[in-house]
């Protein structure tokens, strides 16, 4: 193996001696130059700054920083697992610390199911590089070839002589070993942590004992509390306000206004909450005050008459439909939904003359800093961001409106402030999953082959509501996918598995309709299409046909597809975030109503890091997908949401969750996404099973409002 020492390249790997003797192996987790490890020598870290460093202390304690925000995806556990695996560290001696925002990290964010895929090789290299240096140090000490030494369980062993030294004992000597340019990674058959179920969430003890972990748990001496009254109707703007009564109430320090906001500042949450109700505010109309009724009409109108943007066009669709033996049409619609994580939005900000301190739950701390820098005209290097644990995100905390509000407010009142949103604020202030309607059309020839396919998506602030290169694109010769967008004052954003959280349901339900019309088994129908795409691909295909076939076949086998007499089964498969998930839902009829009894899920996300965590993500994704498909909606009247808390906005509860069985394809491919991909297929599997059980199609979310859940048959 080639060893090099250079300090001419970027500091992928930094190394320095800790005071008291120890090894700090620093590495940029996300450097684009992962293959170019570099020694950064002669830094004496007297005052140890652990940011971006893996450190090994002389007592053998290993500290690994976790740079990405943790919102329940288990990244704070799975990242260090990968490092520890290659390092051959004793997991019991690994301490994990949440990093603050630091330029040493790249992609220090949570979103797009991208963290593990992005960092997999870098994390492995980091662990393997440290292991290499520890082994070299031991070999040098014992004057034996390094090839005869083996690292295991935080020790380096020389089996021939029986010599053994702990990582802590070797740390200082290892710090003087040249950093290798390349290192050998472990064979996956030798993994002890990766792909296993043995490692649990490293923050479990803190969570179950109520330690302050979350943004809302952050308190600082001298800080004030604030809430903001925002316009209740989208389309309204602030005209005037009278805060005199609110300001006279106990504990209230100030009432101030900025943008469309009126902020009440006080000494405690409850006092602020009470005073906010006493604000007298006048709003005036700025934009149209839209209602769900208007949107329903818009959907129908734009579906036929909208100015569509073509997303993908293959072959001659008009001819295919003209020559079709059979044409099938299906329309599907979903409402706006709120992210409503358990922890409402909140942020701490202290804008001082010399800089800004920010603390709180955000999925994108770097973006928060950049936006606040621009807002307050303060350079980014004067702004710090402490990342707290997030009480859920689901996409809502990709946006930093609440952090910006806190910073602007702090700059006005010149005090450290914790801005708190109530659940009602959370649910009524926007950034929703967009409402969308789809129209699908399919042309079949006389033998039941799919010869033409059309999809039009109409969305409200949806951007492109299609995923034009996903299946069945590539398997149909004549295809047209286009979309129409209506711009609305009601704000929207990414919601876990953006767009596909609903598109997958609609598409998978429609393909079921087509299979039925073709007189074919829904699973076989999809396999036939994939076989066709493999043999004669049409246009651009961005999914891996074999991986999709793999999950389809495996879920059919695991669920006993087509063999069960006592349940009605529905099938669905979807590709998102570079992963493949196929699901089968078992539905039974109870008291004349369909009930989801069980869902089988087979996921191909490549190499699973924590089997325990991965299974949990899949189950959570399915519960999330099922819950929102079944129960959740936000409707609007004159720009105001009709639902504002969990009493009117319904989330799934324990008694409503079916049994879930999860399986993973064990193929050793480098990891692809997992935080989101299990969610999209669920609605389709359930809808198709409901059809099998009742002969009726649910076409609109939430399903609970569909006739099939109202009629006792």
């Amino acid at each position, binding site marked *: 193996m080639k060893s090099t020492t250079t300090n001419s390249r970027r500091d992928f790997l930094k190394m320095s001696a800790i005071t008291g003797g120890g090894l700090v192996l620093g590495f940029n987790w996300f450097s684009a130059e992962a293959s170019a490890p570099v020694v950064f020598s002669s830094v004496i870290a007297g005052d140890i700054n652990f940011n971006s460093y893996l450190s090994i202390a002389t007592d053998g304690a290993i500290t690994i920083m976790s740079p990405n925000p943790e919102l*329940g995806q288990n990244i704070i556990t799975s990242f260090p697992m990968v490092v520890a695996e290659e390092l051959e560290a004793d997991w019991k001696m690994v301490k994990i610390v949440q990093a603050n925002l630091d330029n040493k990290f790249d992609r220090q964010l949570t979103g797009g199911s991208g963290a593990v895929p992005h960092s997999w090789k870098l994390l492995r290299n980091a662990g393997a590089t440290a292991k290499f240096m520890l082994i070299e140090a031991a070999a040098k000490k014992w004057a034996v070839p390094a090839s005869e030494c083996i690292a295991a369980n935080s020790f380096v062993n020389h089996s021939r002589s029986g010599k053994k030294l702990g990582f802590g004992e070797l740390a200082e000597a290892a710090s003087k070993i040249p950093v290798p340019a390349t290192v050998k990674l472990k064979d996956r058959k030798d993994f002890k942590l990766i792909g296993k179920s043995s490692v649990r969430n490293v923050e479990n003890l803190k969570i*179950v*004992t*109520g330690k302050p972990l979350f943004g809302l748990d952050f308190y600082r001496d001298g800080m004030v*509390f604030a809430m903001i009254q925002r316009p209740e109707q989208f389309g309204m703007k602030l005209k005037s306000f009278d805060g005199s009564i609110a300001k006279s109430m*106990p504990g209230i320090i100030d009432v101030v206004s900025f943008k469309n906001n009126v902020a009440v500042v006080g000494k405690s949450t*409850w006092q602020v909450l009470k005073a906010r109700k006493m604000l007298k505010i006048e709003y005036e109309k700025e934009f149209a005050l839209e209602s769900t009724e208007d949107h329903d009409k818009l959907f129908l109108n734009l579906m036929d008459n909208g100015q569509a943007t073509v997303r993908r066009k293959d072959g001659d669709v008009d001819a295919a439909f003209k020559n079709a033996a059979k044409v099938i049409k299906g329309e599907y619609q979903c409402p706006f939904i709120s992210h409503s994580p*358990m922890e409402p939005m909140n942020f701490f900000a202290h804008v001082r003359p010399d800089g800004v301190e920010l603390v709180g739950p955000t999925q994108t701390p770097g973006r928060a800093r950049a936006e606040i820098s621009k807002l307050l005209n303060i350079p980014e290097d004067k702004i710090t961001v402490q990342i707290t644990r997030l009480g859920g995100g689901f996409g809502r905390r990709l946006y930093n409106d609440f952090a910006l509000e806190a910073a602007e407010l702090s700059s006005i009142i010149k005090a450290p402030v914790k801005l708190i949103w109530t659940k009602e604020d959370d649910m009524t202030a926007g950034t929703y999953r967009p409402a969308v309607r789809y129209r699908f059309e399919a042309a079949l020839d006389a033998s039941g082959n799919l010869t033409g396919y059309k999809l039009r998506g109409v969305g409200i602030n949806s951007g492109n509501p299609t995923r034009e290169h996903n299946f069945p694109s590539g398997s149909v010769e004549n295809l047209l996918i286009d979309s129409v967008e209506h711009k609305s004052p009601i704000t929207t954003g990414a919601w876990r598995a953006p767009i596909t959280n609903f598109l997958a349901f609609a598409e998978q339900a429609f393909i079921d309709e087509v299979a039925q019309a073709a007189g074919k088994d829904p699973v076989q129908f999809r396999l036939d299409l994939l076989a066709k795409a493999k043999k004669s691909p049409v246009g651009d295909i961005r999914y891996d046909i074999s991986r999709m076939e793999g999950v389809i076949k495996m879920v059919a086998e695991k669920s006993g597809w087509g063999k069960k007499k006592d349940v009605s089964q529905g099938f669905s498969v979807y590709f998102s975030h570079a992963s493949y998930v196929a699901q089968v839902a078992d539905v039974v009829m109870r008291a004349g109503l369909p009930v989801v009894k069980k869902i089988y899920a087979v996921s191909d996300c490549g190499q699973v890091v924590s089997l325990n965590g991965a299974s*949990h993500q899949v189950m959570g994704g399915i519960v999330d997908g099922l819950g929102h498909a079944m129960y959740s909606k936000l409707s609007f009247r004159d720009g105001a949401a009709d639902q504002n808390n969990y009493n009117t906005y319904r989330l799934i509860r*324990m008694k409503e969750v079916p049994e879930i069985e999860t399986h993973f394809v064990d193929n050793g491919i480098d990891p692809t996404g997992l935080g989101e991909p299990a969610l999209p297929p669920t609605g389709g599997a359930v809808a198709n099973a409901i059809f099998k059980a009742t002969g009726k199609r649910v076409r609109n979310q939430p399903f609970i409002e569909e006739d099939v859940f109202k009629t006792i048959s």
Partner: protein
Amino acid sequence: MAIYKLQVNGKTLQADVEADTPLLWVLRDHLGLVGTKYGCGIAQCGACTVHVNGSATRSCVYPVSAVGTSQVITIEGLSEKGDHPLQKAWDEIDVAQCGYCQAGQIMTAAALLKQNPKPSMDEIEVTMNGNICRCGAYHRIREAVKLASTKI
């Protein structure tokens, strides 16, 4: 404003607050006990669940003036070392995803097990149905309550 002396986790703590202040905000803003969470503020989600004289109580709608001499137990006081059978089961089953609702889930389950140490799955579901987990960790919550019930 008035001074309230509260029996919390076996200690007498005091707070100078208004009579209608929910126990939740007294615990969090005034007594530094932040393990009890604010989720919805209207007793719908259970994130704020504490024990008042042993009963699972939604502290977000329970005014401090109603507490009187009642014994209040929060997640911080459920056990001395975080080793209540439920806390151990929560770790063993690896229940938490984001973790925000879990203190409330555990306190709800703890009150159940005190009254009914060997609940059936149905009884567990009926009780735990009042607590929302937005991450959807319901399967493991149920399993952990069951596991803890075998250790009590």
